[in-house]
């Protein structure tokens, strides 16, 4: 039997896409658990202990949460825009997952003459694609906030929109330095060129800039104004319940994994080990895990920005800093002649 290479490619991509979606679903489930444990530790509490505090039984906590969420009432508030209200959480999670199409997870592996590439697509504009997909995420939040017919939701959605687009400018600028060094927009190329020296060595300012903007893009502490509990109840997700709420929550956590993966890929060598040591997916996963832990640590530690501080910081500090970084990189590269 001869296999059509096109069908093989299609099947290969389909399997990888499903594996990534399932893996991220699992990552989301256990990130919620890990976050509760980390926060409990920081705040000297016990943390989740009904399912079981220690031992293998504790891993069932996310399962219990999921079952409970699924069987909650799926309601639609009066005067809400029913279609938009229902579609917004789906949109949020779909967009969050979509970014994973271009992130390379591991060097290619050849088994029995068939080469497996550990990315879904290696397109020439991957970095641009990431920015494009990342900026779509704001739609889901604005639509969810607007369609709920709730003032808190509306305010949360609007704040989120203004915040995300403000920090997206600096986020894009932070990556320009990396692109200048790599001379490519393909993430596979960018990762391959970081052996043995990671981009963070040449782009420390860009790296810090990216990290700050990434936290703001994911609406996490200290930039969690869109869902500031003390003023907006729960922001854009106030009127959401059951799996719809879980989907918004999932989108937020997947976005954390995504920005961590992008930071690792662009600045910390992706799947490359330090000093060219044994490249593989384990390095990427380790780097992502460290970033995720820092996200949780910040949530347990830092207070929230005020809105005017947030906007001023984004436009008056990060944007000029990003421009200065690009120009410093350009001048140094021209002077060194490479």
């Amino acid at each position, binding site marked *: 039997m001869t296999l059509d290479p096109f069908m093989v*490619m*299609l099947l290969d*991509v*389909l399997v990888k*896409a*499903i594996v990534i*979606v399932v893996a991220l679903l699992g990552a989301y489930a256990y990130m919620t658990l890990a976050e509760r444990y980390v926060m409990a530790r920081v705040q000297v509490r016990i943390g989740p202990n009904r399912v079981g505090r220690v031992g293998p039984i504790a891993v069932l906590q996310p399962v219990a949460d999921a079952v409970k969420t*699924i*069987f909650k*009432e*799926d*309601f*639609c*508030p*009066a*005067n809400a825009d029913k279609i938009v209200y*229902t579609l917004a*959480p*789906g*949109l949020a999670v*779909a967009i969050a*997952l*979509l970014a994973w*199409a*271009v992130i390379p997870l591991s060097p290619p592996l050849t088994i029995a003459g068939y080469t497996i590439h550990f990315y*879904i*697509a*290696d397109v*020439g504009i991957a970095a641009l694609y990431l920015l494009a997909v990342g900026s779509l995420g704001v739609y889901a939040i604005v639509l969810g906030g607007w369609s*709920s*017919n*709730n003032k808190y939701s509306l305010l949360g959605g*609007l704040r989120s929109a*203004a915040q995300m*687009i*403000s920090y997206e*400018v600096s986020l*894009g600028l932070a990556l*320009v330095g990396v*692109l*200048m060094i790599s*001379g490519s927009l393909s993430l596979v190329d960018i990762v391959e060129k970081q052996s043995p020296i990671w981009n963070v060595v040449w782009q420390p300012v860009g790296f810090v800039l990216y990290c700050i903007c990434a936290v703001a893009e994911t609406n996490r502490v200290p930039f969690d104004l869109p869902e500031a509990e003390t003023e907006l*109840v729960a922001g854009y997700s*106030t*009127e959401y319940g*059951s*799996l719809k709420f879980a*989907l918004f929550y999932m989108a937020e956590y997947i976005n954390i994994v995504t920005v961590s993966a992008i930071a690792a890929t662009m600045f910390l060598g992706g799947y490359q080990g330090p000093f060219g040591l044994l490249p593989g997916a384990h390095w990427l996963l380790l780097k992502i895990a460290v970033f995720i832990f820092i996200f949780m640590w910040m949530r347990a530690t830092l207070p929230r920005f005020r809105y*005017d501080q947030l*906007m*001023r910081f984004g436009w*008056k500090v990060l944007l000029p800093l990003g*421009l200065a970084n*690009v*120009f410093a990189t*350009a*001048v140094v*590269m*021209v002077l060194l002649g*490479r």
Partner: protein
Amino acid sequence: MPVDYLPILVMLIVVSAFAAIALTISALVGPRRPTPAKLSPYESGMPPFGSARRRVPVKYYLTAVLFILFDIEIIFFYPWAVLFRQLGWFGLIEMALFVLVLLVGYVYVWRKGGFDWD
């Protein structure tokens, strides 16, 4: 090559299917016992007043316009950054002129208070 983008289409279909399945399960499995109080907008226990569909402060529009301006600038940076090695001094000076023009606008917005929220 357009065929390079086919995997992204496959990914799009898979994630859309996932979202659709999740929303369908949510609609099918949960109970439905609506009451007027449950369906009214949550306003911290106070009786809700007015509609939430109201006019949006103009500040948000201003931010959106500024975003479009500067984000397009960043998009112009991308091809320039990729080709920077070939362009050398020429690329640096060209981009300096481009950013100089934009900086005039940036300083203008700053002095007009466009970046201040209150």
